[in-house]
Each structure stands twice: as structure tokens, then as C-alpha cells.
């Protein structure tokens, strides 16, 4: 089954007149015998809020890691605002922000110190880093916990803190890996609003998720990755083709097996 915007037409999504913020060509990565990413092509327009969805193990995290210069690809090219991530890492890294899936921060810094550290690492003067830190803490609803150690933060607070660290230098492109996983609805709403506002200002967001409702709500562009390949890409409407995104996703990546008959012992009527 193929939905509108399926892989054979890649890359095709170029909304508006803006140049592409992210261009990925033939990105590949193999771990041992397993081909984690099998040559993906992707094009994300500037100002877009794009989602990268796929089942577990599809290659989302590996792809994002390679796009952000944290994992060396076996082949392919990644351009961020025209800058090659692997040819010119300093320039490319300077304009991106990254929130990894497994958010681990400097636990023994307070929230305020962490934000300032992130800002100063990015070359901001200390005063500017402190000023931005205070504003971000406020917007992210962390001001009351600014002087608590990150070690004592909850999962949602950590995700928000990681987002603050990724935003403090005002990146042009923001990459987030499962930004709302394990986050309570209130924190999720704060993150969602901030991302929408960030993208509305002309910056670009690319995030991975397997929460289809979230992608449907906030994204204008979605790519579906399965077994290391992009199997569909386009606007939300193009990809879902009149169905819900959840349905379109399942139709594309499919149930893995129809072996219900084999599990005849499963259920309360059997032993």
C-alpha cells in the first residue's frame, strides 16, 4: 500500500518559497550486520515544524544523531541551512539545538546554573546567558525550581530543562528526539506551545515521536521511517490521505505478524 507522498516520490515537500533548512541525502548507518539507516533522503523547509515518526527500532534516533553530528554516518550528506554537518561541524553545530531522547543533564548543577552553562558553552557572554536563562526558566515554568539541583528534577522538568539548554543560543534548527515521552500533560503543553511559537518565528523544528496525535496536532510536515527507510513524507494531509495519521501509519508500516492463531493458549479460557 502506498499513500500520497510515499517514498518513490522523495524528496518532494517544499512548502512556501523558503529555502530548505535541513537537507538529508542518502544517509546510511550500519551496526555490525544490521542496517539501522538504509539511505534516507529528507528535505525540511525553513520555518517548518516537522515530525519524524516510526516504530521502535526504525532508525529515528540514529538518523537524528547523524543529522546533529553526534554519530558518524557510513555515507550520505546532511546540510543544515546549507552547511554540511560533517564537512563543517563548527558552523553547523553553532546553528542547531539538540534535545536527545535520553535526557541526562549535569545533575549537580541547579537549573539556573545549567542554563547558564549551556549558554556560555555556546559562546554567549555570561550576563546574556544569565538573562536568557532567567527568561527561559520563567517560560518553561521552572523559575520556582531554578536553584534546585537537576538531580532532584522530575522527568518532565528534565525534558523542559533540556529544551531550555537547546534553545538558549537561539538556534535556527531545533532537533528533538521524543520530546514528550514520559512528560505529564501540563509540561507537555508548555513544551508544545514553546515549539509552536519557535517555529512560527521562522525557525525550524524536527522532532521524532511515535505519538501520532501529537504529530497531527503540531506538525505541518511528517516523514514516516521504517526499517531505516523513509516510507512516506509530505504534509500531514498528504501523508494521512483522508485517514487519521495513526491509521495511515499502521497501514504503511503494517502489523508485523498475523499469528493470532498460534497463540491459542493465550486468554482466560485456556490454560
Amino acid at each position, binding site marked *: 500500500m502506498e499513500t500520497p507522498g510515499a517514498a518513490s516520490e522523495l524528496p518532494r515537500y517544499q512548502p512556501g518559497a523558503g529555502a530548505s533548512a535541513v537537507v538529508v541525502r542518502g544517509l546510511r548507518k550500519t551496526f555490525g550486520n544490521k542496517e539501522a539507516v538504509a539511505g534516507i533522503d529528507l528535505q525540511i523547509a525553513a520555518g517548518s515544524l516537522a515530525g519524524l515518526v516510526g516504530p521502535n527500532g526504525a532508525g529515528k534516533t540514529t538518523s537524528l544523531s547523524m543529522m546533529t553530528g553526534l554519530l558518524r554516518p557510513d555515507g550520505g550528506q546532511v546540510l543544515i541551512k546549507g552547511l554540511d554537518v560533517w564537512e563543517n561541524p563548527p558552523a553547523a553545530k553553532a546553528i542547531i539545538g539538540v534535545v536527545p531522547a535520553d535526557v541526562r543533564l*549535569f545533575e549537580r548543577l541547579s537549573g539556573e546554573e545549567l542554563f547558564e552553562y549551556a549558554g*556560555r558553552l555556546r559562546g554567549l557572554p555570561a550576563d546574556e546567558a544569565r538573562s536568557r536563562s532567567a527568561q527561559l526558566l520563567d517560560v518553561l515554568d521552572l523559575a520556582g525550581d531554578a536553584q534546585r539541583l537537576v*538531580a532532584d528534577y522530575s522527568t518532565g522538568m528534565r525534558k523542559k530543562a533540556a529544551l531550555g539548554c537547546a534553545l538558549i543560543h537561539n538556534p535556527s534548527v531545533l532537533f528533538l528526539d521524543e520530546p514528550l515521552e514520559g512528560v505529564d500533560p501540563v509540561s507537555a503543553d508548555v513544551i508544545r506551545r514553546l515549539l509552536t511559537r519557535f517555529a512560527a518565528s521562522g525557525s525550524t523544528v524536527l522532532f521524532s515521536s511515535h505519538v501520532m496525535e501529537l504529530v497531527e496536532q503540531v506538525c505541518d510536515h511528517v516523514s514516516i521511517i521504517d526499517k531505516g527507510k523513509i516510507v512516506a513524507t509530505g504534509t500531514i494531509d498528504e501523508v494521512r490521505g483522508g485517514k487519521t495519521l495513526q491509521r495511515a501509519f499502521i497501514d504503511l508500516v503494517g502489523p508485523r505478524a498475523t499469528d493470532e492463531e498460534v497463540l491459542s493458549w493465550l486468554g482466560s479460557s485456556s490454560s
Partner: protein
Amino acid sequence: MARLFVQLKLRLLLNALRSSRAAKISFIISTTFAVLLAVGTFLVLASFRGKSTSVDLTAVIFTVFAFGWLIAPIMVFTVDSTLDPSTLALYPLRTRQLATGLLAASFTGAWPAANVIGLLGVTVGLASGALGVTVAVIAVILQVLFCIALSRFVTTSLAGLLRSRRGKDLAAFLIIPLVALYEFFTQVVPKVATEGKITAASFTGFDAWMRWLPPGLAAHAIQDASDGRPGPALARLGALAAVIAVLGWLWVRSLSRALVTTDTTTQGARVRSAKLPLSGFGLRGAVAARFWLYQRRDPASLVYWALVAVITAAVSASSIIGQNHHPQVILASAIFGAAFVGIFHTNSAGLTGPPFLLEATALSRTRDLRAYFSGQNVVLCVIGAPLVVAICFGLAAAAGRPGIGVEAAPVALGGLGAALGLSNLFTVGLPYPMAKRTGTPILTAAQGYSGYRFGSIMGTLVGTGVLAAPVIVAVVLALAGPLAIRLGVLLPCGAVYGFALALAGVRLAAAAAVGKIPELCQVALSSAVA
């Protein structure tokens, strides 16, 4: 169930062997050391045959092994890759099944086998007659079981001791007296023995109190059986088995509690100052500021500094005590102290773990990496230099030769520069993922990477000694000179030499790291240090 657990343990060991080249090398190194331990222990125990103090010496060795099992899991090298009980928490296993299975799994592997084989040296050194040999074999098995049960019980209890973050931070410091004792046994005792201050006769009468400890019970059971007294021998073995049963029960109890008790987050821990220090020093200042705060707030960092102090003191403590003392060995203390400042902070990406990714996004150019390494080195130098020098002066004062402190200071400064430079180089050249074990703040190499850790430790230690040699030579040549020369010339020369070495290390490491950031990120991501 025990059989299943043993099969699982064997499967895990085989899979680790198949997983990577690093794992294979590590397995070979670990197995080689296990074989050496087995052969060495067997020969030492066998050599006690015919000695009047053989039972006392055997009891001492049994006790040292028990102490080793207590210390080893929280020290650098992993000798017991016991199955993680938390992975078994969801299965409907009865406590007895869990205990038996885990104990059987703990008994499986090269190191437990090396312990059994090595301790079987008692069948030659202490046992005589069929009954004596039979009891010796049983006693050795019980002794190893005791070691395993003791080790498991203590590490699990430490983990369950305090469950809040602050509690864990405080519990972390329990390691310091344990390491001090370890250093005493490994550094002080062998040296004193080499100097002839400890002989076989020194152990006469040890059994007056040691015979009632579990290792002593095992040794004396063999002696009793060999002397034709099966009753007392069986009674001692029974007592030892009872101790093992009690330890096992306590272990399983604390294990059961630990598996169903959540960690509680400490509320209200607030920092006093909201601002990072060193704001006017760019990236170098930012890295140094974060690192400085970590030296104060991170229990592992505080423990590392305490260990540097213990090691620096222990290296020469034995040589300055007693009549035939050699206070010049304080120079070795200076080298070891400096080297361990580097050793404990090498593999920076692995030690930092996943948060390194935040730093990595800002580290792209060679100059960024220079700032990164030098920022950390400045902090280590600010703490390490006065610490090591002060301890050397303290040791010199204790030896009644304060002048030796003046000689040790330039060696410490030169050595510290060398150690920091080497530490930076090994951080880039030999990175490996780290893992945190339950009950200890000390990070160890992730499974399959012990060889890397061994390589970087020995490389830093030997390299520091070699690079500090010119300072030592200069100090020895200046011994006859006036104090003013030693203080006014050697001290600044040592400091400048150390600075130059550290600077060279920073520059070389930064140049090498600039193309390896993704690899360092993967090492950091693979580290489970939280």
C-alpha cells in the same frame, strides 16, 4: 533453578566474549589474572607445609581473600559479574530460589574458580591424611561461598542503606575507610614484610582471635581433621555453614527489600549562589566553573580526592614508620599522588556520561577542545597540587625530615602536570564507557572494557613516573645544595616543567579529539553513570 541461573551466567559470559574485540581482550586479561591468582595462591599456601604457623598463615590468607571479596566489587576491577537481581524482580521466584540461583551464578566464572583452585593449596600446605584433604576441599568451597555471600550482602546493604539522594551521597563516603584498609593491606603490609618486619613467626597467636572468624574456622577445621579430630573439624565447618546461611538470609532479605523500595527524592536541596563562577574566561572559564562545582557537589569527585590522599599517604607510610625508615620514598608518594589525580579523571567523556553531549555540541574546533581540557586541568591543579604537596610535607614531618617535603614538592608539581597531560591523551586515545555499580560511587569500566581501564591506569601511572624522572634526578643532584636552591630553583622549575607537560597534553589531546567528537559522544552515551 540454580542450573538455569548458572546456564544464564555462562551464556552472558560467552556473549560478552563474542560481542566485541574489546570484550575479548578484556576477557583474556581478566582470565590471565585469574589464572595467575590461582597458581600464585596455590603455591603460597602449599609452601606452608611443615611450618609451625601454617594454620595461622592459612587463616590470614583466607581472611585476606574474604576482605578482597568485600572490597573488590567496589574497587576498580570487576571480578564478580553477578546477575543483576533487579532484572529478575518481575519473575515469580521464591526467595529461596532467587538466593540459590544467584549464589550458584556467583560461583560461576573464572574468578570464583581461581579462588577455589588457589585456596586448594591448603590440601598440600595444611591438610594431611584422607580426612584432612576431604575436609580441606569442603572448607575451601565453604570459604569461597562465605566470600561471595559476604560480598553480596555488604554491597546490597550499602545500596539499601539510605535511599534518598542525600543519603546516597553520604553513603558514598563509606568507601573511604574501606579503601584505607585495602591500601594498608596492599601497600603497607607487603613492604613491611619485605623489610623483614613481618615473618611467619609474627603470626603466632593470631589464631587466638582469628580462629573464631569464618575464615579461621575453615583453616582450623582443616587442621583439626589433619590432626585426627573429626568432631571439632565438623563442628567448625557446621559453624561456618551456619554463618553462610545467616549471611545468605540477610542478603536475600535486604535484596527483597531493595527490589520493592523506590528511591525517594530529597526535597529542598537548593544551591546558594545562582551564578556560575569564572564568567570572564570564555569557554575555558565555563568548563572550569562547571567542573569546580562538581568537585564540591559530586560525591564521586569528593571520594576521588579522598582516595588520592589515602594513596599518597599509603605509598610511603610503611617506609617512614619504624627504625629502618627510608623517608626518601616520599618522592614516590608525590609521584603516585600526582598520577592518581590524572588516573581518576582520565576518560573524561566516559566519566561525564550522556551530559557530555551538551558539551559536545559546543566542541568543534581545536581551540574549543583546548579550552575544554585546560578548563578541567586548571581545577584539578588548583585542588591536586596543594593536596599532594601538603600530604608530602605531612609525611616528611611524620618521618622527622621536613626537608624531604621540600624535595617532594617539585616532583609532585612536575608529576601532576605529566599526569594531567597523559589523562587528556588517554581521554581521547582510549575512551571507554563507564558504569556505576550499586553501592559505590566509584565508576568502573563497562562490561568488556576492563582492559581499556587497565591500559589507561597503567599508562598514566608509568608515564607519570617516566616523565617526572628528570625532576627526581634534579632533586637528587641538588640534595647536597642549600635549601634556598631547592626551594627557590627546583620548586619553580618543577612547576614550569609540569605546566609545560600539561600544556603539551592539552594541545595533543585537542588536536586528536577534533576528529573524534562523534566517537566520544557514543562512549558518553553508552556510559551508565547516573
